[in-house]
């Protein structure tokens, strides 16, 4: 499996919520107390207006003129209720914020870790931006809902229920009338809400397009400049800006329609209540005071209905966000760490064994076929072959960035998938071709694999690698900031740093995947020689893009179309006709000028 799990995307909203709550126990901490406070706050919100209404009705507009003592008592009681409501709302808010934010921070961190635990194949199958948004925007969406909508839902539903019950108590025929008026709205709202949420999905998609278009105009600035395609890029951005604006306007138009619709329905219901209530009153079934009180209840009933669309929208977004986060957590890493059950390899020179290893990318043709090879401890092995012959795949299997489709890889006699990652990553380190650096100083980057290394350790390592001169040439030495992705350095310099980083990590097996392809020959030879010295006694495997590496190695593995077709020392291979002799001949031909 290389794609993120889709199970979460298809399950129901409630099931998502249940699973989400189970995965995030922090949400449930003190939930009972919070709900109790919410109940109190809701009760206050409904009772206070009713009490006010009653006071007006009984105290002021009674038949005997204003009843001042009654009004005074009622007003005082109401004030107490108002304050109690405010205090419980405050306490509920604070509790809710604390528990949800704590839960979300934990969820965010767990998802982040899980992304790193996913295999390289799964990671590279996703857009980077999409992965980032799983731990940022998607979680923020839940947070936003919790901070606003979550509260709203509790209070709104409560208000709706209490208002409904009271309406029925005052006059059930009128209550029935109101419900009948709102019933179609409830259905319409669902449809509306679906339309609105689809519109917002479009907005997000268009915004995504817009962002990548803008991002290309920034990241690709030099290509755009070099090829004079500013106009075309601007036109491309314009198209996405226009599309985003259109989608936003459409969504806004829908929302602008939704809210007034409930306003209109409320007006129809009110008008209906006035007409029906008056008719009932004429028939002697209702008093004027009851009708006025009922009209007041209708407004209480209407206001949560009016916010319902927005709350439902936020809820929908939050659930969608939650689904995407759960989608990450649901994805089983296809290259899993055996963890504590796994074995720890003792330090010392490493022996590698490939047993009939085959590999195919998911849905692709096999790229390695039945590779069987032993690499003795302390040996320095070079791997050569044309592009696409399976060299990098071999290296990725050896470092367990991927697992073989068939056969197995053993390190010191232990199957690779039984070795704990902590032990594996400490002992086997690969330097990929693209020297990615973090936006920090040179020192931070070099000690990345061994944070305990002191500046002296780093300087010593640089000297051992023959890079001290280069380091001295930098204005701020080890404290030089490397910029985003290391882009303040040249491509060759980045490779030097990446190599130093791996060296400082002090592995027993070093795997170099064309790690010095952008470095000048003199530096490369110096580096090669330094590496020979410092890795003596360790196992080193390098994928060579220059035959000089192969010439210096103890043994050469020659890859061709996913198989090892030749192996042996350079001196032997160069004599026998075959792939290696051809590769070498063309290399010599290139040089002998």
């Amino acid at each position, binding site marked *: 499996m290389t794609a993120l799990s889709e199970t979460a995307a298809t399950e129901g909203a409630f099931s998502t919520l249940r699973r989400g709550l189970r995965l995030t126990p922090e949400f449930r901490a003190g939930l009972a107390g919070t709900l109790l406070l919410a109940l109190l706050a809701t009760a206050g919100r409904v009772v206070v207006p009713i009490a006010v209404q009653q006071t007006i009705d009984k105290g002021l507009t009674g038949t005997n003129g204003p009843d001042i003592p009654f009004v005074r008592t009622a007003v005082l009681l109401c004030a107490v209720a108002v304050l109690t409501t405010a205090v419980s709302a405050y306490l509920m*808010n604070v509790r809710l914020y*604390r528990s949800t934010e704590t839960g979300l921070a934990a969820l*965010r961190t767990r998802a982040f870790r899980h992304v790193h635990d996913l295999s390289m194949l799964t990671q590279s199958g996703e857009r980077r931006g999409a992965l980032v948004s799983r731990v940022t925007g998607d979680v923020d969406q839940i947070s936003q809902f919790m901070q606003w909508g979550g509260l709203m839902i509790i209070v709104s539903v409560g208000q709706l229920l209490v208002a409904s019950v009271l309406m029925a108590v005052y006059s059930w025929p009128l209550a029935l009338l109101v419900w009948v008026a709102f019933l179609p709205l409830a259905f319409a709202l669902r449809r509306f809400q679906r339309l609105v949420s689809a519109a917002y999905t479009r907005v997000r998609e268009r915004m995504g397009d817009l962002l990548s278009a803008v991002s290309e105009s920034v990241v*690709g600035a030099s290509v755009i400049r070099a090829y004079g395609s500013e106009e075309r890029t601007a036109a491309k951005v314009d198209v996405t800006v226009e599309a985003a604006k259109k989608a936003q306007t459409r969504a*806004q138009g829908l929302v602008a329609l939704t809210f007034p619709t409930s306003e209109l329905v409320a007006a129809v219901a009110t008008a209906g209540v006035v007409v029906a209530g008056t008719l009932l009153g004429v028939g002697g079934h209702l008093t004027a005071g009851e009708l006025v009180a009922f009209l007041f209840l209708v407004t209480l009933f209407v206001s949560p209905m009016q916010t319902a669309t927005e709350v439902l929208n936020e809820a929908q977004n939050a659930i969608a966000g939650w689904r995407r986060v759960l989608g990450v957590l649901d994805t089983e890493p296809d290259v899993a760490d055996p963890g504590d059950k796994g074995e720890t390899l003792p330090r010392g020179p490493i022996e590698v064994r490939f047993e009939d290893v085959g590999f195919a990318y998911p849905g692709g043709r096999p790229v390695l076929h039945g590779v069987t090879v032993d690499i003795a401890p302390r040996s320095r092995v070079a791997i050569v072959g044309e592009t696409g012959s399976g060299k990098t795949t071999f290296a990725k299997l050896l470092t367990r960035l991927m697992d073989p489709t068939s056969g197995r890889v053993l390190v010191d006699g232990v199957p690779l998938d039984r070795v704990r990652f902590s032990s594996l990553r400490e002992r086997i380190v690969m330097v990929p071709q693209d020297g990615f650096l973090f936006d920090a100083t040179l020192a931070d980057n070099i000690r990345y694999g061994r944070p305990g290394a002191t500046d002296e350790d780093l300087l010593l390592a640089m000297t051992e690698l023959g890079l001290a001169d280069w380091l001295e040439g930098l204005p701020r030495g080890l404290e030089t900031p490397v910029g*985003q992705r290391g882009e303040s350095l040249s491509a060759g310099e980045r490779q030097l740093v990446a190599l130093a980083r791996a060296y400082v990590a002090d592995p027993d097996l070093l795997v170099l995947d064309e790690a010095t392809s952008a470095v000048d020959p003199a530096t490369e030879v110096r580096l090669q020689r330094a590496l020979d010295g410092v890795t003596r006694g360790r196992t080193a495997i390098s994928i060579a893009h220059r035959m000089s590496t192969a010439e210096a190695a103890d043994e050469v593995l020659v890859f061709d179309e996913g198989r090892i077709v030749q192996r042996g020392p350079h001196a032997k291979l160069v004599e026998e006709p075959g792939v290696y002799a051809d590769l070498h001949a063309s290399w010599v031909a290139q040089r002998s000028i």
Partner: protein
Amino acid sequence: MPPGSPRVNPRILREGLGVLWVAVRAEPWVFALSVAASVLYAAMTVGSATVLGRVTEHVVLPAFREGRTTAGALALAAAAIVAVSALKALGVAGRRFYAGLMQYRMQARYRRAVTRQYLRLPLAWHHRHPTGQLLSNANADVEASWAPIAPLPMAVGVVFMLLIAAVSILLTDVTVALVGFLVFPAIALLNVVYQRRLAPVATHAQQLRAEVSEVAHESFEGGLVVKTLGRETAETERFAERAAALRDANIAVGRVRGLFDPVLEALPSLGVLAVLMIGSLRLRSGAMTAGDLVQVAYLFTLLAFPIRALGWVLAEVPRSVVGWRRVRGVLDAGGSLPYGEAGPASGSAADLEVRGVRFAYETEDGPARVLHDVSFGAAPGRTVAVVGPTGSGKSTLTSLLVRLVDPHDGSVLLDGTDLRDLRHGGVAATAALVPQQTFLFDDTVRGNITLGQDVPDDRVWEALRLAQADGFVAALPDGLDTRVGERGATLSGGQRQRLALARALARRPRLLVLDDATSAVDPQVEQRILAGLREGGDGVTVVVVAYRKATIALADEVVYVEHGRVLDRGAHAELLERSEGYRNLVNAYERAEAEQEAVENETTEGEALGNETGEEALR
């Protein structure tokens, strides 16, 4: 970067209103419509209270008193209620729609402007600003600038509504009106305090949200390094630390909101209670009627919510001001790359001359000089190799040749014309650079090669053939129409390089600049590419940065660069003869080989011993 969250003070408010004025001037009609709709909404909100009061007084109560009513009266009452609501609904819809339209139009307008500016500003400016910052200028900052537009019409409507209400209450009873004049300013004031308290914590949270995103982005981008060095736990700690800071900031926001929201809700209720208390006394003294009192109480409850719109506008103002300052920062950035008038020469290969060029990058510690007085030339149809150690300024030199940057001193001449005198597009029409780091757009193979120019497919294929890329492109599922993914993610490094090369070749440039452009390509493949270039290469002048001897050998002349200076120029053989640095560089492999053989001859017998000592040295 500091959170940059100015408080709502008169100066910021003035600046914020200035930003809004920019929007009003840009979209006067949309703004007028939204305000008109909002005023309609405001009037109808007050109107609905009046209508309900009138209906009660003239239709409902008489009916109850007399025990009969007419269908006409009831229909009129119902119609009045629905009509007022319909107008109110119209007002709400119009206000929301036009406010949104204005906001989105302003966003679109400034996103276009900012991107245009990015495309116009010189690369030196780009180098000084991190990618993330530029993206957020075009996205989040533009959005923040125009955020107060959404609640603005509502706020204008509210001011109008308050005026009507004030007059209406004042006409009813002066004493009760005094309560209103205490409560409404109190709500408004509390709102200001609320926003003042909220703005800094909210901005802080916003800042942390950006930081969390930055950490995640960088960490996932360096995922392979994290994996290969087993640093997942440390990365998670780094992320968890930011996530915890964001959590605390969000809780701080929650505390402020959690405190002020209930208070703001309670205040009008308390106001109504005060009105009732005082009103009942006034009622007893006969100063006002019960109906008046009910209407005033109703107005209070009606206004309690909309009055907060004033607060929403104020809440957005500081963020808007900060966003606008950043957007203006981009739009006002100077230092464009001025173009001349001269048209590019046409015909066959170009003539390139570099005269006394100096260049330095701006850094925090002052300028870092990269090129010192570099001069060389390439006659039409000739190939010049630029050779030098890693970090000697070769890539910078190539970017000067196609005018990605301008030299601080000296000049680059193409067919005798200074690059700075060529009109816009003149350089691109003549010269093509294939950089060391290839950049592919998230587009099809064809799109990446033509870059939107009208290039026929057979010419695209011809370029692909020359770049030795026709084979793998033909094998792609959709051939030329295959999408290459974000930054060409679906292709290998060598494949990306060959596409980038084909992109340059498809334009049939008269000057081709290759900056180590085949480093990820196999030597064998590179050989074929170079052979192809040589065969059809009469019409093109080539400057190539290279390490491989075969590449260098194709050159008519070699320019040897070290520490940003041209140390020697001449034919390969001549340089081998007289330049030690050059000799050491290009012969590095042979020398290593020779030494290796010498060492091997010496130590065949002592190999086991060598291993032993090596191991000891490690311990």
